[in-house]
């Protein structure tokens, strides 16, 4: 063979082999062990949509789904005793709340929203058209016990707010322990009307719903929860995701009369994109890894300076979630995200050589002549912007800037330069210094301007919003909080303003 052919053939072969090696990732092979059947405790009222969806799921994935039907309360008792099974699909959120307070429930994937309505027999023989009609002396109603049921509790609160409770209370003939008992009473004709979920009405062909605007704000949720003793969470969550997917399970619920939530788009193995400020990486990386494992998903994480991340977002990138270095780097892209939750904060510190040889105690000390100081660049980073704001507020900007030898786009460069001994002090976040605890000395700055707050937000247009909301729950967990605190952050967890 002539050398030319040898080179061509050899290099092409090498390209093919290398490409094959790149895509052959031994870690990504699906494990066969995951084909065990799933055991789902399912409220009887949800039987028809869930059965349809479960059959479809079995066809697609080959995993069999065993459904155990029963009343939600009964199922809850069963599973608490049996302590086995994977998922619990309750008729309303009160049972999920009960399961959670019993410590048997982990994640919940919302499926549908229920609104309280007035249930009357089909044809509405007593001509009940509004809440006012329930106050008529000739009308008798059944009511779900406000102490025991979610519907009773939320509707009583709503009626008290609207001022109708006092007039309706005398018309209550009987308090019932579950919402289905109320529906049964109306169906049998023992009462003229009852207040129940619209989804419950949809399960009774004999009933008809009368809409009451006063009750609209008191919604309840149908959701499927993963049980804490489930030993195949990735498989369980996969079925739950299928059930809660806007293009898979949810249409079946909508056909059954539920007003469904805005679910994620179904993917066998979802891939999501998480943007995160570099400073947050150490605090979240382990949480991300555990989340990937538990959910059976891939989180593509992009760590960078927040200036660069927001520039990418403004250039059209749409991450599924964004964990910013500071609220100031969330507000300028806020329109692309849902309301942000503030998870942590970190204070700015003066970082010095071990033992603080120059005796630097305050910001004013940094203005001492002859010091070599490093700060972050005001335009390029959140830290730099905060630094400038702080120095301006303290009227120290020009004096300290006279000592500034270097301005960097990121804090890590400052820490590393300080470590190599080329600077006397740098202004960084406490979280930047967590990796060098014991190697460098940190002096905390008490000023209110010296605080950076890290918010997390889910992308407005994300097709994986539910998934990323579950990730937020993981970020809020005690284990995650501990990782934040170990990484030099101060825990915060402030919900978004309504």
């Amino acid at each position, binding site marked *: 063979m002539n050398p030319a052919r*040898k080179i061509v053939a050899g290099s092409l072969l090498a390209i093919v082999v*290398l490409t094959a090696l790149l895509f052959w990732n031994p870690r990504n092979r699906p494990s066969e062990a995951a084909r065990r059947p799933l055991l789902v405790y399912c409220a009887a009222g949800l039987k028809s949509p869930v059965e349809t969806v479960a059959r479809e799921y079995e066809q697609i994935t080959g995993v069999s789904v065993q459904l155990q039907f029963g009343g939600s309360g009964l199922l809850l008792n069963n599973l608490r005793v049996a302590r086995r099974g994977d998922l619990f699909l309750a008729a309303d959120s009160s049972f999920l709340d009960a399961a959670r307070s019993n410590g048997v429930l982990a994640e919940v994937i919302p499926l549908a929203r229920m609104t309280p309505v007035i249930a009357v027999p089909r044809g509405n023989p007593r001509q009940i058209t509004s809440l006012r009609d329930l106050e008529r002396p000739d009308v008798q109603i059944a009511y779900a016990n406000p102490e025991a049921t979610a519907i009773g509790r939320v509707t009583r609160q709503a009626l008290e707010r609207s001022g109708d409770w006092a007039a309706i209370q005398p018309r209550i003939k009987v308090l019932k322990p579950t919402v289905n008992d109320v529906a049964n009473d109306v169906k049998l004709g023992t009462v003229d009307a009852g207040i129940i979920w619209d989804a419950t009405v949809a399960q009774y062909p004999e009933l008809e719903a009368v809409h009451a605007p006063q009750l609209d704000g008191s919604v309840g949720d149908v959701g499927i929860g993963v049980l804490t003793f489930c030993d195949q969470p990735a498989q369980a969550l996969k079925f739950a995701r299928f059930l809660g997917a806007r293009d898979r399970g949810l249409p079946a619920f909508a056909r059954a009369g539920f007003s469904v939530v805005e679910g994620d788009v179904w993917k066998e193995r979802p891939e999501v994109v998480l943007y995160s400020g570099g400073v947050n990486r150490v605090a979240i990386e382990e949480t991300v890894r555990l989340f990937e494992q538990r959910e059976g998903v891939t989180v593509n*994480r992009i*760590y*960078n300076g927040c200036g660069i991340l927001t520039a990418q977002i403004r250039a059209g990138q749409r991450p599924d979630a964004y964990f910013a270095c500071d609220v100031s780097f969330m507000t300028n892209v806020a329109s692309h995200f849902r309301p942000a939750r503030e998870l942590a904060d970190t204070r700015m510190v003066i970082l010095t050589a071990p033992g603080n040889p120059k005796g630097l105690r305050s910001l004013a000390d940094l203005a001492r002549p002859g010091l070599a100081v490093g700060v972050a660049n005001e335009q390029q980073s959140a830290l730099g912007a905060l630094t400038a704001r702080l120095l301006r507020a303290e009227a120290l900007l020009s004096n300290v800037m006279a000592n500034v030898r270097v301005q960097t786009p990121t804090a*890590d460069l400052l820490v590393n330069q300080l470590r190599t001994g080329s600077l006397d002090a740098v202004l960084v976040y406490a979280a930047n210094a967590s990796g060098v605890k014991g190697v460098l000395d940190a002096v905390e700055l008490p000023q209110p301007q010296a605080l950076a707050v890290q918010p997390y937000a889910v992308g407005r247009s994300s097709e994986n919003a539910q998934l990323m909301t579950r990730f937020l729950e993981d970020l809020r967990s005690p284990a995650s909080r501990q990782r934040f605190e170990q990484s030099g952050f101060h825990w915060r967890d402030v919900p978004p303003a309504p």
Partner: protein
Amino acid sequence: MTSPSPAHDERGNDARRLRHSDRTFLICFSVLAGSYLLLLVSTLVADLFYTSPGHLWHALQSAEIRYAIRLSLLSCTLTALLSLWVAVPIAYLMARLKFPGKGLADALLDIPIVLPPLVIGLSLLILFQTPPGRAVERWIPVTYAVPSVILAQFMVACAFAVRTLRATFDQISPRHEQVALTLGCSRSQAFWMVVLPEARRGVLTAGTLAWARALGEFGPILVFSGATRFKTEVLSTTVFLELSVGNLEAAVAVSLLMVAAAVAVLLLIRTQGLDSALGRPL
């Protein structure tokens, strides 16, 4: 009288002076050359003081790092080969052909060298958001996946390979090629049998340069590929991420692994490399 004639003496002095000046010249050059080598070696030694065998061992123990090593080596080699396949035709055509707009093409080829790395990453990201980019993504996921690593490396590495090969082909006189053509070779035969063997040293240099550039590349990768563990994390991003939290020891440990890998591969290519493919020593 057998005393040496003045003429002979002068010739001897000349020779001595010459030898003396040769020695001075070589010593001067050796000192200059050695100073750079010394600088390189001292930085490595200084690095060693910033880490410990424990850190190196810890780095090698971690499955993430082992994956990053594997991905780095595979992607760099692939990038280097792809770069050569593209750079050889570009450099050859640019060296041999005259065409309108050649100056512009020349300038365009320098763009990846001139652009800040982050901008290259951002531009790739934007490109794959356009309708044609999205169409490609439907078939092969690129953004934030392994192909994005190769593409980001290729963008920059190829430009360096083109520069090197351009100089190589420019320096090879077209005479041999023309002789081959007059002896009945086709253009392609002349290229494969005459030009390429003559350019083998340049091709080798271009290949190693592309490989090394790809290994060190991280700006575009960070933007275009992310740093997802077990997926798109390469050694250079590991170093960057460890540095970004002030973990100098780990960053230096991984850097030393990179140096070791690079030296090993470059030595292997220099000693084995193309001569086996061409059947003759360089």
